[in-house]
């Protein structure tokens, strides 16, 4: 499993560097933001980091505001956000969690605690990603099942099937596209008698006629 990327947002270089070094030592690729605006832009991008450690107090946008903003956008696997705070009153913590943060760590961060909480976050993100993938594949399977449950228009003579795009397809093509069925071609005993044997006999006759001609 590829280690998940972590954003560290803190306007204080000392704290940012220490937290970043803790994460790097634990094997996480780290990216940085030096204020709330930059953190928001990174988290709001097309490929946001899986995890983020946001300092509570930053000039401009504060940690909780950053979370509140990114939570407005619906995404399949939301970034797991941990607030870094030197506040430890429960009212503050409740406010941070209500804003949409997943967890908080008090500053200065204790290395073991920080890494343990980040790995909980990584677990949650991975679980969520696995669930999202499962849902996606189930939805795809369901769509196929639905397609196969409908009434299929079939040509009474050549057995072609009319697909959703109003186009006539071979049975094999249609089922290969709409299910996990694949076909291997063979013949049944009846068709052997009816088609294969006469063809083989015709071939044999043709060869004999040619042989006769060659010998003169």
């Amino acid at each position, binding site marked *: 499993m590829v280690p998940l990327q972590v954003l560290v947002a803190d306007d*204080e*270089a*000392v*704290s940012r*560097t*220490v937290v970043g*070094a*803790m994460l*790097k*030592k634990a094997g996480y690729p780290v990216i940085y933001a030096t204020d709330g605006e930059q953190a928001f832009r990174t988290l709001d991008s097309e490929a946001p980091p899986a995890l983020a450690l946001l300092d509570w*107090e930053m000039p401009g946008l504060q940690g909780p505001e950053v979370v509140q903003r990114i939570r407005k956008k619906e995404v399949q696997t939301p970034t797991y956000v941990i607030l870094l705070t*030197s506040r430890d009153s429960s009212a503050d913590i409740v406010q941070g969690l209500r804003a949409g943060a997943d967890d908080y760590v008090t*500053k*200065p961060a204790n*290395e073991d605690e920080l890494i343990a909480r980040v790995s909980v976050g990584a677990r949650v993100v991975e679980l969520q990603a696995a669930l999202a993938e499962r849902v996606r594949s189930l939805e795809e399977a369901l769509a196929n099942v639905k397609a196969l449950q409908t009434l299929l228009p079939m040509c009474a003579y050549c057995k072609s099937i009319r697909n959703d795009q109003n186009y006539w397809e071979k049975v094999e093509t249609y089922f290969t596209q709409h299910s996990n069925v694949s076909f291997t071609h063979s013949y049944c005993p009846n068709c052997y008698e009816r088609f294969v044997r006469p063809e083989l006999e015709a071939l044999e006759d043709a060869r004999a006629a040619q042989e006769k001609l060659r010998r003169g």
Partner: protein
Amino acid sequence: MDNAPVLDEAVTSALRALTSPGEPDVLAEVLNLFLTEVPPRLARLRNAWAAGNIEEVHRAAHSLKGSAGNIGARRLHGVCAELDAKAKSGDLAGAAALVDAVGVEFGKVESAIRRLLAAG
């Protein structure tokens, strides 16, 4: 408080141990950042105090407390925490002495850092 170390060795060794193989020494990097970042903030603190801007005093003391805590500057952290609490509550008795103490304690931390960096 007076018995607290200027620079807690447990914290500085922990910072040194954060260095990943092939990367620059985290302790030296963090201490250098501290030396560049803190003086302007100290100036901001003094100016805010002189101007009677208590909100700014609170902000500056709070951020200094954070940086001091990160490098294990226990005594500096202690005076910053006191000033932070006072500015937050608005009870400014003794705050002037604390503003001075922050400067004095920073001076001690600075010397300790320079010794440590020189020792390598």
